């Protein structure tokens, strides 16, 4: 009996202690690996190869963070659904969610979550059957649309169709696979999703050529790595890890030439970034060569794009560097 009461008290005290006082970076270092939240299957973003390796744009970002911290890939991937990820992040079940979260006002301000920059500019589009006679979003008046639940997508459609007084019907599925299955089975006239992920999944349709993505994009979906709020160092680490990949592309440092660039580049910014000059690593709580490890193990932004999205036929569009007409401008390493 006494032991039972004691147990209760200890459990209560244990719960009392759950407020994380240590920084996430210290925790991750102590633990020895990164806990990275991923969507289990989204071609191009997160997939498993025949050999059982995880690949994709989101996976590469998990790897980049791990490379920055450990100089090696030490990750535990935690599969999540859009419904569970916020809770998992808030409660400390994962350290970072690199994929698929659109940076919105409410998510940033009211949920105890923070974003470490934008690493993909995307938008919401529609997939329809080629023979449906639908040529643009305006043709979707009174149409039934399949969508995956727990995303900004539902709200974007509501905003867009409401502003145009267009009635529509929405069928909300627990995940993207089921929504796409239902679309394929004729339950819906259109399937909607973020364009990049949709292009990736289109390959999974029985006859991809029978379907077409409408040219209209109805929303802005700036996506970035999501972290817990209130840990400035950890957020900086997420932001600068990604920024190193953009900067590397801007400065001409690639996964292929990073070793030589480190030895021979006379560009001072490259030297500072790769840890040849200065002591930039310590300000993030990392080794001086953290960015070198990121580029060496994962590559610059273009390397990740080429590896993951080029095979899907995805254009870089807005995701090009500013000097090529895109939106990315590297924050200076200075």
């Amino acid at each position, binding site marked *: *009996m006494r032991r*039972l*009461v004691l147990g*209760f*008290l200890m*459990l*209560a*005290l244990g*719960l*009392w202690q*759950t*407020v994380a006082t240590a920084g996430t970076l210290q925790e991750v270092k102590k633990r020895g690996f990164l806990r990275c939240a991923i969507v289990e299957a989204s071609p191009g973003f997160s997939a498993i190869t025949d050999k059982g390796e995880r690949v994709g744009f989101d996976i590469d970002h998990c790897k980049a963070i791990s490379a920055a911290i450990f100089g090696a890939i030490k990750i535990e991937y935690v599969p999540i659904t*859009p*419904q569970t990820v*916020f*809770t998992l992040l*808030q409660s400390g079940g994962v350290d970072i969610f690199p994929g698929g979260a659109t940076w919105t006002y*409410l*998510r940033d301000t*009211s*949920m*105890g*979550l923070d974003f470490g920059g934008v690493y993909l500019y995307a938008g919401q589009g529609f997939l329809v059957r080629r023979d449906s006679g639908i040529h643009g979003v305006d043709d979707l*008046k*009174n*149409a*039934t649309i*399949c969508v995956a*639940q*727990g*995303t900004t997508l*539902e*709200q974007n*459609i*509501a*905003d867009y169709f*409401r502003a145009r007084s267009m009635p*529509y*019907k*929405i*069928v*909300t*599925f*627990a995940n993207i696979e*089921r*929504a796409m299955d*239902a679309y394929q*089975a*004729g*339950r819906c*006239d259109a399937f909607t999703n973020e364009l990049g992920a949709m292009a990736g999944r289109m390959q999974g349709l029985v006859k991809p050529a029978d379907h077409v993505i409408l040219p209209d994009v109805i929303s802005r979906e700036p996506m970035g790595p999501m972290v*817990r*709020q*209130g840990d400035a160092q950890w957020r900086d680490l997420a932001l600068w890890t990604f920024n190193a990949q953009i900067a590397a592309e801007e400065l001409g440092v690639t996964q292929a030439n990073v070793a030589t660039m480190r030895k021979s580049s006379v560009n001072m910014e490259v030297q500072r970034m790769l840890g040849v000059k200065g002591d930039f690593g310590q300000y993030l709580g990392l080794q001086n060569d953290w960015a070198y490890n990121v580029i060496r193990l994962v590559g610059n932004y273009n390397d990740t794009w080429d590896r993951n999205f080029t095979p899907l036929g995805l254009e870089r569009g807005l995701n090009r560097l500013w000097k090529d007409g895109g939106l990315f401008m590297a924050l200076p390493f200075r």
Partner: protein
Amino acid sequence: MSQSGVPSSRLARKIRDLLPQMLIMLGVALLVYFVVVTTRENLAQLGVQSGFEFLHKEAGFAIAQTLIPYTEGSSILRAFCVALLNTLLLAVVSIGLASLFGLGIGIMRLSSNWLVAKLGLIYVEIFRNIPVLLQIFFWYFVVLRSLPGFADSFTFAGFVLNNRGLYFPTLQIDDWSALFSGGWHLVVPHPGRFEYEGGFALMPEFLALALGLSMYNASYIGEITRSGFLAVARGQYEAASALGLSGYVIFRRITFPQALRVMIPPLSTVYMNIFKATSLAAAIAYPDIVSVFVGTVNNLVGQPIEIMLLTLATYAAVSFAIAWAMNSYNRRIQIQERGE
């Protein structure tokens, strides 16, 4: 007992028996207190909003089936009501269908016709032994994939069936004062651009869930029915026959009412299980409470604690209401014992 008062040794034993229970209660109360306080502190530290103010915010998302008026501009509270009504509609229809099917199956199993009895047995063994979620998936994908598309819909007397659902003609009253002199007209579903319009439509998701839940639970209700009838003493039937009552009257007036007394308590359990199993709706896009609330709204406002609490409380309240209604009914139909 002739002895008055409790001996002191008994009192001591009573206290000794009660003490551990009180300590456990105290422990539980402390635990709850610590959990609540810690959670609040953690949430505040994380900057997560807490409280139920979000219920009054604009929902900003659409819902596929709404029994009361609802638009994207309605509040989240209204979305909650819409989802609750969807859940209740599904539960009521499933409970009704399950009872009907179940009664039929139970009676089949009691039939003196060998083939009919064996068919009843086969039904029970098949539907009772397959998880209900799989049955729902089966119905959903069969309903969805084998039904004709829009262009080849089955139409019959104003009813339409295709892969978008089952459409009914509805009565529309134009003028209540002229109700009996042509103040109404029938709205028959007619082809629109993408689907049939007008009339009332049941989503295929609803059909699959109602079928899955009622067919599965009918196997249990069938067994409950069988046990109920078997519990009625054979003499009751024989006495009724001796009086020359017809088979239907015997069933309606003698055996069924007596069987019902035995059936009600286990039926309450099945009804509550059906109600709780409606939450499987979230698996196939029927907008029930779990789907709309735990799915969409949680992602919108990011307050899992409040949302889970509200959802759990709703399920508990409705389950309790079902139990209460069934218990009252049970008390009413039980044999009223006279005196001691």
